[in-house]
């Protein structure tokens, strides 16, 4: 039985232990976010005064709508492609084919290397004299000219998928493996063929895992920065827009902050919406 004073001391001690983490969080994330919020309402170059002009100016530009639509299109498409690919990959890997350990590791490669390098490699590989195009031209009779992958929307979606599918794949795989084989056996015994087992038993059961991972993929794709910076070409999603504002001379911090806030708000909004869907019990 702990005495009251001891309990208070213990609570104080816990708080003390939490302090570095909380301090780090507030100092390195929360306070800077607040600074950005405040800065977004200041007139450009000033440190006093309030104005909503940056938001108004940005949102009233026709380009702004294109940028936001582009960002969503890229992230949603990348998420969908990741889900599709991850499900197939995980179903294959779960049967532990030969070399499956190697492929599990391969699944992680896009996450351990800096995004820049992956983007550079893909730019070279998919370029007009990259191996993919050389292969297509030489071996596929229908292809005469190199196919343009780089700097196009489908190409960018491919880049995003390459970089961010591991989030979905990892959670899907772990959910899949934690599935009780008895359930599938039961369905099998009940007379369902492979496809029916898959469609009606397995997929619904791993849906939470898939969705959890896809949330991460979506968020990463939405905020992707280094990739569109070097491989975006004419297409500049929101994150690059933010950076462009700082690259003017003089740097437009307030305009950049406004865009960053819009981006954060959109992300939170979409996430909340997505999480709501997650919470709904699967049919």
């Amino acid at each position, binding site marked *: 039985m702990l005495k009251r004073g001891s309990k208070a001391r213990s609570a104080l001690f816990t708080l003390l232990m*939490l302090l570095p983490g909380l301090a780090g969080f507030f100092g390195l994330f929360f306070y800077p976010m607040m600074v950005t919020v405040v800065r977004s309402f200041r007139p450009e170059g000033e440190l006093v005064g309030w104005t909503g002009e940056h938001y108004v100016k940005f949102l009233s530009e026709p380009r702004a709508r294109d940028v936001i639509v582009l960002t969503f299109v890229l992230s949603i498409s990348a998420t969908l492609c990741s889900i599709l690919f991850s499900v197939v990959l995980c179903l294959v890997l779960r049967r532990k084919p030969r070399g499956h350990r190697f492929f599990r590791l391969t699944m992680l490669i896009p996450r*351990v290397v*800096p995004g820049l390098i992956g983007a550079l490699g893909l730019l*070279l590989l998919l370029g007009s004299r990259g191996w993919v195009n050389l292969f297509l031209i030489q071996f596929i009779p229908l292809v005469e000219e190199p196919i343009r992958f780089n700097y196009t929307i489908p190409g960018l979606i491919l880049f995003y998928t390459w970089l961010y599918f591991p989030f979905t794949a990892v959670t899907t795989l772990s959910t899949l493996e934690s599935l009780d084989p008895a359930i599938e056996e039961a369905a099998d015994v009940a007379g369902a063929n492979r496809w029916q087992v898959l469609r009606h038993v397995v997929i619904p059961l791993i849906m939470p895992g898939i969705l959890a991972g896809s949330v991460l993929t979506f968020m990463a794709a939405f905020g992707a920065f280094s990739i569109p910076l*070097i491989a975006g070409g004419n297409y500049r999603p929101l994150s690059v827009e933010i950076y462009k504002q700082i690259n003017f001379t003089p740097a437009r911090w307030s305009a950049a902050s406004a865009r960053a806030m819009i981006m954060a708000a959109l992300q939170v909004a979409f996430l909340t919406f997505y999480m709501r869907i997650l919470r709904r019990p699967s049919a």
Partner: protein
Amino acid sequence: MTLLRQYLRAILSARKLLITTFLLCFGLMIYLPFLMIAFRSVGKGWFGRLWLPPELTLEWYRWAIEVTNIVDITKNTLIIAVLAVTMATLVGIPSGWAFGRRKIPGKELLMSMILLPRMIPPIAYALGVAQVFYRLHLINTHFGVALAHVAVCAPYAILVLSATFEGLDERVLEAASVCGANPVRTFFHVILPLILPGILSSMIFTFTTSYNEFTLTLMTYGKDTTTLPVRTYLAIGEGYWEVTSAMSIILVIPSIIVLFMIQRQVAPEKLVGGFKGV
């Protein structure tokens, strides 16, 4: 059955072949970009539509070392990474201990909060970090950049360490004290060996995170604290992608080595941040 269905059936019955092709394409898609960069970094005269460069040379690596000062830059990257790892671990151990071994009201909420910097893309708060750092004159200092990295490294550390501390079984500690060990001995001979793997894995993940970090570094770096990712980005904009490729290979090798080294020790899923209760 319709013809289409028959065809599909036939294809799908060649299951093994399909799987092998699929896995092969998957592997190629992941590894070929790096192979391409590698060839570009040693190729000379690779113009027009050729599969491989006609000549091989090491001069791009020599260029990277002599002209772009890759050695100094690597030093910077490592110093910053070490600083970031130290700070993140120092933050992570007490917080992990608190999360793992104590009842905290609203633990789930706090955990999600702590993980926010990893979930929200860095560009959104890197702006604020840059502005704060300008005022505090932390720009272009190793400490400053490392501090910025702690924002993305600490959540990892806290996560891994809280799991580690959570797994520390009370009964082992009790057994140790029953056997007559005083707190100090218990710590060094019982607790430490048990948590060391956790600390090590958190250090490794924090190290790779800091080493590869680009966005936050881009906002807080200066001439003395250029890191490899930032220098590679600048090199992409300058031309001579042969030299950029050489730099990329130098940048990428530690990450791949670390990955293959630790794949036996630790569940690789942790690397991706597969945390429960997203």
